[in-house]
């Protein structure tokens, strides 16, 4: 289905990653609906009792993950390498995130290592020009190796 849009989806997504480069989490969240869904598929933390996944809401787990990454990687930045937009407002964004670890990230102690990692974000922009869904793919094995972490957690 083709949407009639307030703002082009690619423009909204561009603003989102620009806010991410500015490390402005409130601005990132302001580009999303109040109830926007969040799916960071590689996030899967195995505890003794349960598995915590990167599924939930942007204004919940999403903001926590974004803020945590910025704390752990104070020079966190991104480069958008391609944007492909579908008529329904879905945008596939290939984005390379990079940063230098300065604090623990989950179970990964900081060794001061730098990472550079291709991501695929699939975002949906609604007719009001707001993001209502983000799904992300990346390779944690590469991420862990670059940070000097060898355990498959």
């Amino acid at each position: 289905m083709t949407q009639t849009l307030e703002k082009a989806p690619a423009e909204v997504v561009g603003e989102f990653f620009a806010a991410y480069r500015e490390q402005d989490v409130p601005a990132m969240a302001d580009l999303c609906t109040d109830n926007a869904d969040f799916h960071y598929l590689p996030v899967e933390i195995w505890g003794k009792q349960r598995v915590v996944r990167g599924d939930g809401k942007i204004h919940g787990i999403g903001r926590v993950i974004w803020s945590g990454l910025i704390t752990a990687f104070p020079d966190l930045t991104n480069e958008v390498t391609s944007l492909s937009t579908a008529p329904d407002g879905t945008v596939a964004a290939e984005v390379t995130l990079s940063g230098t670890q300065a604090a623990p990230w989950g179970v990964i102690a900081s060794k001061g290592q730098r990472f550079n990692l291709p991501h695929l974000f699939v975002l949906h922009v609604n007719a009001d020009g707001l993001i209502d869904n983000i799904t992300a793919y990346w390779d944690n094995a590469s991420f862990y190796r670059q940070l000097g972490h060898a355990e498959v957690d």
Partner: protein
Amino acid sequence: MSTTGSPGTAASVADDFVIALAGGDLDGAFGAVSPAAEVVIHPTGRSGGPQVAREFFREALAAFPDLMLTVTRRTACGNGRVLVELSLEGTQAADFLGAINQEKHLDLEQAWLFTVSDGLITAITGYWDQNKLYRRLAVKRLDRIAIA
């Protein structure tokens, strides 16, 4: 999976590729891939021509004889690009990407970006979490992939 893209569209070309793969038909799948196609499979660190993708899927089909591909979302973009998000599932029966066979079940979300031009796939890019794949296959350490 059923073909939903109109015949001859980028979406239908990508659909047909995945349907052929799901049926184990590598020749059928790669019949629609340009010999000059550019392939990047990020989690494996492999890139190059279509043989890179063909070899990856050949290995996957050999390692997981009951391989099942379930498309969870297919998005046709306006620039000839088609995003296919799928679940890859199967039971390991042979070594795969360095992980020795421990007969574990694999379920893995993947995203494949296809670029289609004039009815041929001219680029394939794959994304997934290799750490999750290793976890499912009971690999303990990234520096000792082949040691159970």
